[in-house]
């Protein structure tokens, strides 16, 4: 079908959102035709109502009211409101405070600002002073505030026994532990500390002090996802050290091999910021070109200009054959190992797109020194060695950063170390084992035999925030303080030291894990006090960092300034890389013989390695590619599905060696044939009320002796299993009302796109709608500020940080899987994902969608009680206490951005899980907490607009558009979202609206939306 909007490109774009749409499945169109899912109104069937007469009903009603009134004396009471008797100096009611700190949601240690109201942390955003993340954090960081108030947190130390758990006090713990540690040390038995990544120099010193006191102590540091393989390959190719960081912003061509660097590889936030500098649709400087070669669709793959499908166990052959080809063409002195296949044969055998591969090779050659080939951290070491050689061959080492490098305080334990530990545990040589906020029983491959070995250790303890699979087998579970209750310092990059400070006293009887070790290392059970670790860090900083900084300030001022800023930067250059060792190539082993099917286990994008499984906000965050919530599944290609007669929601059994597991099937367009991809971190047995039992445990398929890596199994066997499992996805929900035609998205101009080349030749190629439309509504006039938003689709990578930030800022509830299935997800902000092309090799698009705050909004006219109105500054407002829940506004909204509270979801979800204390403390007091029967939607963060207006009045000046930053804009790492005053001709939003690439969605409906999108440009070769 012709596309009037994208016609100038001469291409016939065929947009589709799911395989059902592509195959003209009537189910897909039924869902689109009805804005509300089937079953939505089941609860309100009139014929099912009780046949009690009106008279009887009224009599019963009046009697009930009378009884209630006589017996309930204070049912309105939600507790006392007591003014401060002695107001803390730092707190002014109604005014938020900001505290700089550090996030430990992952190992990147991003700088954050914690916003508190009346002493309660309510929001987390990036620290703009931190030189790495520069004011941005990911969705996990945004949602970390919920973890503080999680009702399932351990509140006191617990003694675990078969008869049942019992609370104990810290005095008993300290006395018992010190006695055990001394006993172990004096008898020569090992004291094992199982920790995660240690990023803190002070924490390292705590561990060193502990080992000095108890010489038989040993630290085993591990993470499920880390850079160990990449660093080991670097050591082989160059010299001991860490793999260097990459200047993504300087790269003209990027080839990513299973490297999801825009989502969960390396420092994703920094990567997105740097990458998006080469994707700026607004400034339209030279665009970079991204090639992605991967097994299944990822956010990085969705941002690619060219994408190739390849199973992960074939990547080594691919890189070597690339080296072969490029080496021949460039006459390089670096040669691929002998026996490497030719690229042409490889492409043919693997059924890859030959034209795309040719472009890839030529682009790498033409951009030598300005290109980079990047391998994902889960690929085998030999792939990384080959990629190092390829980059060396092309002179791409110029893009390795010399201004910064990663720092690892304690090296990770290797497989041999962990095997030795388990061996010692089995022999009875380990007296005490301390799980230092880790969960090895869930994380480690089961063939280590860790769980059985742990039962043989006489004294095992777990330090953790919430009970997990490991603590269930320990003697004591000791509650540790949350990040926001803890001190800390972090050094993950050379020369950059960030601080973590507690913004509140611990809510429960918890202690910092570092402070616990310090008190045990003292040998005195009365040693502990609240400030023990604070004093320790201050002492370290005075002797170490302060001395190096040679600051003119006295130490106290230096310390307080550092706490205020959150970070101290001492410029320190990375060491220059040593020469390349060509002999490393000869050490590459030929890849093991591949079976037909490959199982690929990888990380997910929201709950980490499973540690955030109990965070409902992260569980309900739609997957950036599949939009599935609350589950994991097996990604398989349409062809592989057809081979096994599999359909969506069928079950598939995946077997590797003697280990097998069944997963629900998700047929993912763009997946390599023969690849089965599953995300780890789900199926936890002990993860709190929300996380337990969510998804399927794929960790049991891992093996420490895997032929390729613990994440890649090229000898997998798959078969169709019995039964079905409903996966809930939001991708079919809230679809914009288009006609029953799968390419209506292009006809209606919801996605507008082009290529960089055609934009350069003809900047006006978009051919925007100019026709003046007649409207029954009077066009509103905005005399002062008029708020509007712009979104650059070139920069958006679909990371979902905006969605989470909006949820936390605006008190959006979690509804649960069952309600999402009925189309009742409450996110005000969604990121739509579209495909075009074929199911085998689709091209993807992401489009953030929120209330468009239309000038002539169709929702405003139809509200019978005027609960939705238009403000003088251009906002489409919602008056919650007028709303009676007709849902006519939502029915009329063509963008489907309105959300209705079918229940009081805080009460409805998981038996009132989020009604428990102290969850209500997370609510932003500036935003109404909506209850049942009320419509809600994006308000352009009207609370922030009002605050800015009050500040302007106080300062006796005019309100400017730049005074306000919406939560989504503040969170977006790539700065894809701009917001401001459309009436100010100098504002960036005015320039967005006037931009050649700027367009509005469904403009032909004459709603006059105030969100301007910049069309997506692909940087592809002109002849494609």
């Amino acid at each position, binding site marked *: 079908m012709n596309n009037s909007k994208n016609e100038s490109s001469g291409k016939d774009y065929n947009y589709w959102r799911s395989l059902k749409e592509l195959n003209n499945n009537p189910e897909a169109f039924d869902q689109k035709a009805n804005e509300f899912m089937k079953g939505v109104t089941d609860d309100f069937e009139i014929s099912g109502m009780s046949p009690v007469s009106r008279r009887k009903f009224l*009599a019963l009603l009046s*009697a009930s009211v*009378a*009884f209630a009134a*006589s*017996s309930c*004396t204070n049912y309105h009471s939600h507790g*006392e409101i*007591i003014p401060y008797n002695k107001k*803390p100096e*730092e*707190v002014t009611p109604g005014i938020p*405070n*900001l*505290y*700089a700190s550090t996030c430990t949601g992952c190992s990147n240690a991003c700088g954050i*600002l914690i*916003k*508190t109201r*009346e*002493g*309660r942390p309510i*929001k987390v*955003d990036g620290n*703009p002073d931190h030189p790495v993340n520069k004011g941005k954090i990911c969705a996990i960081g945004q949602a970390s505030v919920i973890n503080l108030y999680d009702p399932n947190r351990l509140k006191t130390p617990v003694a675990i026994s078969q008869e049942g758990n019992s609370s104990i006090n810290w005095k008993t713990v300290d006395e018992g532990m010190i006695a055990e540690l001394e006993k172990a040390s004096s008898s020569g038995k090992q004291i094992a500390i199982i920790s995660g990544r240690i990023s803190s120099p002070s924490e390292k010193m705590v561990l060193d002090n502990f080992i000095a006191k108890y010489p038989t102590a040993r630290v085993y540091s591990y993470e499920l996802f880390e850079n160990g393989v990449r660093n080991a390959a670097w050591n082989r190719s160059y010299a001991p050290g860490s793999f260097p960081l990459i200047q993504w912003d300087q790269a003209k061509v990027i080839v990513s091999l299973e490297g999801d660097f825009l989502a969960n590889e390396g420092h994703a936030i920094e990567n997105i910021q740097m990458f998006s500098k080469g994707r700026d649709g607004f400034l339209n400087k030279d665009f970079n070109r991204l090639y992605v070669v991967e097994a299944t669709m990822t956010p990085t793959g969705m941002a690619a200009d060219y994408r190739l499908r390849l199973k992960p166990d074939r990547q080594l052959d691919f890189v070597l054959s690339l080296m072969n080809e490029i080496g021949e063409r460039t006459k390089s002195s670096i040669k691929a190992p002998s026996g490497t296949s030719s690229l042409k044969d490889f492409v043919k055998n693997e059924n890859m797109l030959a034209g795309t591969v040719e472009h890839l090779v030529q682009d790498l050659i033409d951009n030598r020194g300005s290109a980079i080939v990047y391998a994902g951290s889960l690929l085998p070491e030999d792939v990384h060695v080959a990629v190092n050689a390829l980059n060396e061959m092309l002179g791409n080492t110029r893009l390795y950063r010399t201004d910064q490098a990663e720092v690892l305080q304690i090296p990770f334990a290797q497989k041999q170390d962990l095997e030795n530990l388990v061996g010692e545990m089995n022999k009875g040589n380990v007296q005490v084992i301390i799980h230092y906020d880790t969960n090895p029983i869930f994380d480690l491959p089961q063939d280590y035999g860790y769980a059985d070995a742990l039962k043989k250790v006489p004294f095992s303890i777990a330090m953790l925030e919430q009970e997990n699979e490991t603590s269930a087998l320990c003697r004591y579970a000791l509650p540790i303080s949350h990040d926001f*209750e803890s001190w800390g310092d972090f050094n993950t990059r050379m020369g950059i030291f960030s601080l973590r*400070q*507690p*913004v*509140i*006293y611990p*809510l*429960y009887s918890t202690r910092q894990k570092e402070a616990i070790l310090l008190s045990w290392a003292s040998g005195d059970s009365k040693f502990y006090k609240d*400030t023990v670790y*604070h004093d320790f860090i201050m002492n370290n900083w005075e002797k170490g960092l302060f001395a190096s900084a040679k600051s003119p300030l006295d130490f106290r001022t230096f310390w*307080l300034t550092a*706490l*205020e800023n*959150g970070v101290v930067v001492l410029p320190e250059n990375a060491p220059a890389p040593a020469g390349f060792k060509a002999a490393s190539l000869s050490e590459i082993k030929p890849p093991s013989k591949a079976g037909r099917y490959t199982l690929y286990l990888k990380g997910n994008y929201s709950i980490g390695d499973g540690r955030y499984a109990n965070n409902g906000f992260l569980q309900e965050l739609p997957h950036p590619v599949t939009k599935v919530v609350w589950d994991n599944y097996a990604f398989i290609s349409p062809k592989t599905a057809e081979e096994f007669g599999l359909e969506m929601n069928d079950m598939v059994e995946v077997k590797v060696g003697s280990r097998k597991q069944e997963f629900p099937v998700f047929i993912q367009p763009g997946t390599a044939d023969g690849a089965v991809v599953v995300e780890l971190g789900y199926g936890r047995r002990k993860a709190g009320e929300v996380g337990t039992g969510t998804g399927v445990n794929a960790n049991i398929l891992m093996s420490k002796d895997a032929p390729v890596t613990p994440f890649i199994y090229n000898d997998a066997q798959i078969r169709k299993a019995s039964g079905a499992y409903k996966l809930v996805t939001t991708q079919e929900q809230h679809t914009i009302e288009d006609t029953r035609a799968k390419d209506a998205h292009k006809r209606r101009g919801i996605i507008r796109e082009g290529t960089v080349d055609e934009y350069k030749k003809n900047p006006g190629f978009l051919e925007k709608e100019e026709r003046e439309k007649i409207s029954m509504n009077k066009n509103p006039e905005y005399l002062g500020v008029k708020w509007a938003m712009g979104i650059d689709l070139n920069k958006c990578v679909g990371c979902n940080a905006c969605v989470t930030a909006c949820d936390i800022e605006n008190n959006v509830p979690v509804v649960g899987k069952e309600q999402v299935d009925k189309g009742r997800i409450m996110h005000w902000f969604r990121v739509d994902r579209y495909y075009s092309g074929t199911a085998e090799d689709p091209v993807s698009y992401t489009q953030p969608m929120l209330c468009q705050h239309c000038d002539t909004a169709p929702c405003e006219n139809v509200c019978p009680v005027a609960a939705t109105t238009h403000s003088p500054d251009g906002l489409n407002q919602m008056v919650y206490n007028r709303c009676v829940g007709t849902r006519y506004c939502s029915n009329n909204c063509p963008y489907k951005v309105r959300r209705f509270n079918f229940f009081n979801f805080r009460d409805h979800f998981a038996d009132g899980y989020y009604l428990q*204390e*102290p969850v209500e*403390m997370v609510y932003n007091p500036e935003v109404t907490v909506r209850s049942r029967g009320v419509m809600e939607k994006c308000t352009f*963060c009207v609370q*922030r607009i009002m605050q*800015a207006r009050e500040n302007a009045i106080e300062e006796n000046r005019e309100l400017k558009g730049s*005074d*306000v*930053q919406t*939560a989504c804009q*503040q969170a977006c790492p790539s700065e894809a979202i701009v917001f401001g005053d459309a009436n100010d001709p100098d504002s960036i939003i005015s320039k967005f609206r006037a931009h050649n690439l700027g367009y509005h969605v469904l403009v032909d409906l004459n709603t006059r939306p105030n969100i301007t999108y910049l069309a997506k440009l692909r940087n592809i070769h002109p002849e494609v």
Partner: protein
Amino acid sequence: MPETTKTLQRRKFFGKLGKGLTGLLLLSAFPVKFFQSEKKEIASEKKIRIIEHPLAVKRNKKGLRG
């Protein structure tokens, strides 16, 4: 049924209702509360208390929004 009978039945119903309510009022502690002390236990050990950390350093830099 004749209207007067209905009226009698209604009167009896509301009479019983009123007597029941009066009895409940007498039985409940409500009137006693008027004579009780206003002091209530406001803070208990089990309630979660938010206490700002005294050593935390607030950020005073201008130019931050939100």
